[in-house]
């Protein structure tokens, strides 16, 4: 399913909202989540899952082609943990 199919499906289920308005709502939802993550906040969607940032330490790695040692700086990666309700729904 893509974003546009998601818009269609949500629009079908909401009374009195046009497809265009639904599109704006979805855009706002994902932008808000992104902005929040950018600030380092945790997102907690009860029943669905949590998004939070994890820190990866700086490390030395090797360029597999040249064998040269390179420094990989510390960085943050996004981690999604599935919520209990969704996990149970998947396996019911």
């Amino acid at each position: 399913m893509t974003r546009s199919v998601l818009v269609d499906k949500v629009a079908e289920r909401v009374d009195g909202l046009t497809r265009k308005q639904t599109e704006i709502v979805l855009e706002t939802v994902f932008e808000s989540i992104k902005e929040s993550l950018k600030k380092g906040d945790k997102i907690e969607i009860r029943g669905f899952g949590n998004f939070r940032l994890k820190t990866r330490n700086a490390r030395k790695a090797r360029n597999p082609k040249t064998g040269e040692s390179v420094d990989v700086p510390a960085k943050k990666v996004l981690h999604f943990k599935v919520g209990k309700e969704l996990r149970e729904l998947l396996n019911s």
Partner: protein
Amino acid sequence: MTKADLADEIFEKVGLSKKEAQDIIEIIFDTLKQTLKEGESVKVSGFGTFHVRKKSARRGRNPKTGQDLEITPRKVISFRASNKLKLLIEK
């Protein structure tokens, strides 16, 4: 950030009533859940992709009691952030 905060954002930025905003947030995540339940992946461009992965049965061990047991086959969700989102949060 919780669903309530997302509903507030919708209320402020889109101009739906608080109730409408709350309802649509529930519908959005319910739609995502139902789609994933069907085993279908969801791709949100600019954000990321939720994949449903099937794990087969395997032998495991209860780490507390040391007892051997079978881990049943199950479905799990894996989320991959889009490159855009990865770059946004990396720093």
